[in-house]
């Protein structure tokens, strides 16, 4: 079978397989699979910011926490329906995350990292100390959402919800990076001055990518809260952030497949090492360093080089373009044969 055929059928077949998996899995495997899907969403969001736009911000875990707490507190304290709390989590995270664009417009390089690191620590402090709102380290419980009276209790049922949201967000992000905006992001990453000279509004594009990435983190956080059913401030600290960094770096920066591969690998790995925090930290840290040093394009880069994964081009019409070129080449060849 030709590689192109495999690539064409890969996504629909994968979707079909995913749709029937809950019939085959036990509760634990299903739970891990749900986590993988959540981390795919979060990884895509961070990849937009860190990979495509090249903005080194440390706030992603904190924004995920904001999303998780918004959803959990709305449901638990105000008894709001989950279907309102979920978008609300995304919107609150987006609003707070957009604030991240403000320093990014003024500051270069290290300062953005520092200010977002301070912001992340501040958010975690607020989660711990603002007890009347967040219950501090006692955490918040979240019950399963209901869909017209049908309780989505259990990981097997929430899986379909997660899958639907993840597919929607994946397609949305793919459309974004293949559009003008995606190319603008990469231009900003490579050289802001050149981007500006080419008529890209750096301020607007940066604002957009911070907001988008925060939205993904917020939605991911809310879904994380549903899947775990219980959240504490410690879940959204530095270790969470290193998981996010590892997902996009090891999976592959500037690649949609990268976020998926990274999430798959780095969610299952800590589950295998459950209870050995030291080993988890060492493995995450060493993998992060080794990949940056040896394989900066990550697993997706390796896959694309070996031809296992199709190339990713930042243009929506590249397939049509490629087919036209191929047809032209065939015509030329047949004319010569004649």
């Amino acid at each position, binding site marked *: 079978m030709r590689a192109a055929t495999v690539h064409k059928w890969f996504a629909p077949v994968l979707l079909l397989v995913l749709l029937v998996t809950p019939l085959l899995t036990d509760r634990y495997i299903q739970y891990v699979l749900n986590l993988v899907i959540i981390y795919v969403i979060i990884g895509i969001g961070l990849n937009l910011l860190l990979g495509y736009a090249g903005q080194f911000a440390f706030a992603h875990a904190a924004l995920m926490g904001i999303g998780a707490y918004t959803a959990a507190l709305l449901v638990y304290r105000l008894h709001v329906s989950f279907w309102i709390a979920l978008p609300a989590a995304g919107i609150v995270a987006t609003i707070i995350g957009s604030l991240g664009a403000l320093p990014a417009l003024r*500051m270069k390089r290290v300062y953005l990292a520092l200010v977002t690191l301070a*912001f992340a620590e501040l958010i975690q*402090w607020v989660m711990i100390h603002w007890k009347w709102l967040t219950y501090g380290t006692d955490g918040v419980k979240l019950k399963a959402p209901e869909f017209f009276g049908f309780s989505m209790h259990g990981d097997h049922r929430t899986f379909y919800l997660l899958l639907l949201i993840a597919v929607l967000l994946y397609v949305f992000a793919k459309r974004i990076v293949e559009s003008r905006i995606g190319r603008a992001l990469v231009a900003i990453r490579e050289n802001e001055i050149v981007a500006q000279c080419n008529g890209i509004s750096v301020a607007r594009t940066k604002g957009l990518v911070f907001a988008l990435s925060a939205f993904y983190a917020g939605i991911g956080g809310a879904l994380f809260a549903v899947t775990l059913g219980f959240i504490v401030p410690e879940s959204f600290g530095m*270790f969470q952030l290193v998981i996010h960094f590892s997902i996009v770096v090891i999976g592959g920066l500037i690649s949609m497949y990268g976020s998926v591969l990274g999430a798959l690998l780095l969610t299952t790995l800590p589950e295998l090492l459950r209870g050995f925090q*030291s080993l988890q930290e060492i493995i995450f*840290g*060493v993998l992060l*360093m080794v990949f*940056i040093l040896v394989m900066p394009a990550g697993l997706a880069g390796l896959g694309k080089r070996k031809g296992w994964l199709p190339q990713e081009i930042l243009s929506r019409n590249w397939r049509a373009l490629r087919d036209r070129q191929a047809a032209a080449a065939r015509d030329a060849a047949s004319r010569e044969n004649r």
Partner: protein
Amino acid sequence: MDALTLVVAGLANGSLYALVALGLVLIYKTQDVVNFAHGEILMVGAFIGYTIFQILGWSYPLALIAAVLLCGVLGALIERIAFRRLAHEHHITLAMVTVGLSFTLKGAARLPFGGDIYTFPPLFSDTPPIVVGTAVISPQSLVTIGVAVALTLLLWFFFRSTTMGKQMRATQQNLRGAQLVGINTGRIFSGTWALACAAGGAAGVLAAPVSLLYPDMGTNFLLKGFAAAVLGGFESIPGAIVGALIIGVIEMLFGGYISTAFQQVSAFCIIIVVLFVRPHGLFGHKPTHRV
């Protein structure tokens, strides 16, 4: 609480932050690397001190010297293995490697020491605190301030009067120029990391008696060091030291007069406010861009 007491305690904490900030600024000036693992270097120093003082039962000065030397060697090794070959990479790459390093060191410390919290015995349990006027000063504060001042003076002398120190300053100002006049910049890089990490290790041993020892202890000191370096403009060592002292004192006054919970976040607030108001720090110069 008496204001003067708080100020002296603040200066003692501030001199710890100064040792951390100094290392951060040194590495940043020489190699453009923001070392997110610097807090973990301090943690390693503290645990080396704990092992020597508490487990082996040697004296405190010996623990301090051993931690300084071992952390210096560790710093030189890190530079040689990882950062020498990365010199021209994107700054995200460089910072990401230090993030990975930070977690590797944390995990490595958790292997033997586990998740427990250790306490370093106070050095002066039977010496009464010194009273000057209205201020009550603990002997530990005096030792911390004294050692930090001595180390800073030593560094100042080193940069001013030794060949290696002058070569380091030259490398910081212009890497290409330093290479052209025949300075072995690789050695300078390793030396800078060794110095920076040695200062971090010293801060670790000095911090041990006044703070709790656990593998995550570094993050807090790292953030305070960052806040100090940011106040100082990230390019200037005297600026970082002044910034560190200011942060130490502000933090103590926050703790004494407002609330101890706010004490922890005062440094984050300082970073955020300073960077919003003056993105290049209090003492830094506005950078010029060459196109």
